[in-house]
């Protein structure tokens, strides 16, 4: 007897889609726990961990931000293969401001986010007029070329890099700052993408002629998306500069491009929560795998291929489905 799986929305989901959800604690909990749970974990986990794993949590948040930045671009139809560009731009902006002018980290962080986002947007401006693959190609080669430019011209410390940045006052400030930003970015941009503005961005990905035909300048919207995503990535870079108290050529390294893509793909492309989830899984995993050294990147590569071919929806969408729906086997009618 052949059977197929039927998926049915849970009763609680159907009911709580209405405004009546506020009438029941249970339904309010059902609706809000997926939001509160991660925030709660971010708040309490640092208190339980030792200094080493606290540092790992910083990386989780930084890669989470880069993955969110990647996903915003991907939802607008721009596939970036060079998140390191944004990361490195932010890192160098913060480094230069702090090293040469002695500006406090609390000012360099927001400034570097904006400046890094703006410079990256300017560099990528010409490619926005083209669809598809050009954007990926240019984002892939830009950070790799910029490394060599820095190496050759010896600007900003050349191969040595700049060191001696002012660190943030304490590890607690570092952790809660970056997780505050991560949470704000996650929920803020999630909301932005479901708003009418976000609908236009997704529309550009889907069918840009139709969006143009509505009298909307798609380049202007792409520029806005690029600037937002660039700033998110640049903030992550600026933050790491102050954590490591150093900025140098490694900030343009391939790691910062690949891990965010892997995180977004594993977590579930097309959702910022998925991107964050992916970072929360992959970064600690790569710490555990630190022993195998260079083989890590091989694993990321393999992960990418396996997930994109076999599980293109990613882990988040799977979890979401399990949460909202239940399944049962029904007979296939002959």
């Amino acid at each position: 007897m052949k059977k197929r799986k039927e998926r049915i929305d849970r009763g609680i989901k159907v009911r709580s889609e209405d405004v009546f959800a506020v009438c029941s604690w249970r339904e309010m909990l059902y609706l809000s726990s997926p939001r509160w749970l991660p925030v709660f974990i971010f708040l309490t986990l640092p208190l339980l961990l030792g200094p080493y794993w606290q540092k790992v949590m910083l990386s989780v948040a930084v890669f989470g931000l880069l993955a969110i930045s990647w996903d915003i671009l991907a939802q607008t139809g721009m596939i970036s293969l060079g998140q390191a560009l944004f990361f490195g731009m932010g890192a160098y902006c913060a480094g230069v401001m702090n090293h040469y002018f002695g500006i406090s980290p609390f000012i360099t962080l927001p400034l570097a986010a904006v400046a890094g986002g703006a410079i990256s947007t300017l560099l990528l401006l010409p490619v926005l007029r083209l669809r598809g693959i050009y954007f990926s190609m240019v984002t892939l080669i830009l950070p790799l070329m910029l490394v060599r430019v820095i190496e050759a011209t010896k600007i900003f410390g050349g191969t040595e890099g700049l060191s001696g940045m002012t660190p943030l006052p304490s590890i607690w400030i570092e952790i809660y700052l970056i997780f505050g930003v991560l949470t704000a970015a996650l929920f803020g941009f999630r909301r932005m993408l479901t708003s009418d503005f976000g609908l236009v961005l997704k529309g550009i990905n889907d069918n840009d002629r139709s969006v143009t035909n509505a009298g909307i300048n798609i380049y202007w919207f792409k520029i806005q998306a690029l600037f937002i995503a660039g700033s998110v990535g640049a903030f992550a870079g600026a933050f790491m500069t102050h954590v490591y108290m150093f900025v140098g050529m490694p900030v343009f390294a391939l790691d910062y491009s690949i891990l965010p893509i892997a995180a977004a793909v594993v977590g579930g492309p097309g959702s910022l929560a998925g991107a964050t989830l992916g970072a929360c899984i992959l970064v600690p995993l790569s710490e555990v795998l630190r022993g195998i050294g260079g083989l890590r990147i091989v694993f990321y590569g393999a992960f990418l291929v396996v997930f994109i071919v076999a599980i293109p929806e990613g882990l988040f969408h799977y979890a979401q489905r399990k949460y909202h729906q239940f399944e049962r086997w029904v007979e296939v009618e002959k």
Partner: protein
Amino acid sequence: MLAGTAIYAIINSVILALMAIGFNLTFGISGVANFAYGAFYVLSAYATWMMINLLGFSYPVSVLLSILITALLGAAMYRFVLMRVRGQALSEVIATFGIGLAVLELFRYFGFVGFEYNLPVFADYSFFIGGAFVDMQRLLIVAIGVVLVLGLWVFTHHTSLGLAFRGIAQDERTALTFGINPDKIAMLAVAMGAGLAAVAATVIIPLGTISPEEGYDVLIKALAVCIIGGLGSTGGVILASFVIGFAERFTDSYIGSHWTMIVSLAAILIVLAVKPSGFFGKQKELEERI
């Protein structure tokens, strides 16, 4: 000085064209941007090296076998990975990128780095032309480059398979109605691109050593040439190779080798700003493929 620089600039340009032509062919026909291209380049070089040094095959046999193996691997990549995600730009890019990354880093992990990883030159003597010594290998590169480009032109314009290739490149659906199987053609296109990468590696690698870095380098150069030339256009690739090749060599001789990368980067940004689809970009801005 000038003549010597010019000769080396021509050689440099042909090297660039050789590196880019396979990537460009694959994209032009099937629309697949093969980001594993650099990995195929390095893979074929290591394959040749292993066959010569570990298995003791003769040089020509090793070269032919490795070109064949690389092409087969390209076909396998299309058949088992790309075919499942065909038409989804995001997935195609990420899948090929992931494969390239895994292959290159695997070689690095197993420690295939060093001077002993090298391929033999064809003939070891040099000429004195126009005030500069030019070795036989570089002259052969130019000759092979010219032969390859001419061969490809004849192939795409005068053989039925080549015409099918062009048919798919222009309009996949129409080609389908004429009984051309787009999957088969795309598989051949990816395989041929990989094979061309192997040919390029065979003639270019003897000038240096084999290393995973080389894979990234070739990918960057191929992308740069294709971006400037306009994706999918052979004429554009050749012109762009010469523009970058000459620019690099002349900056090298007259300004300083530090500046070569900056010149390429500036060239890319300027070309993109003036003409975003490259010199001979087939597609107009809104009609861009994918």
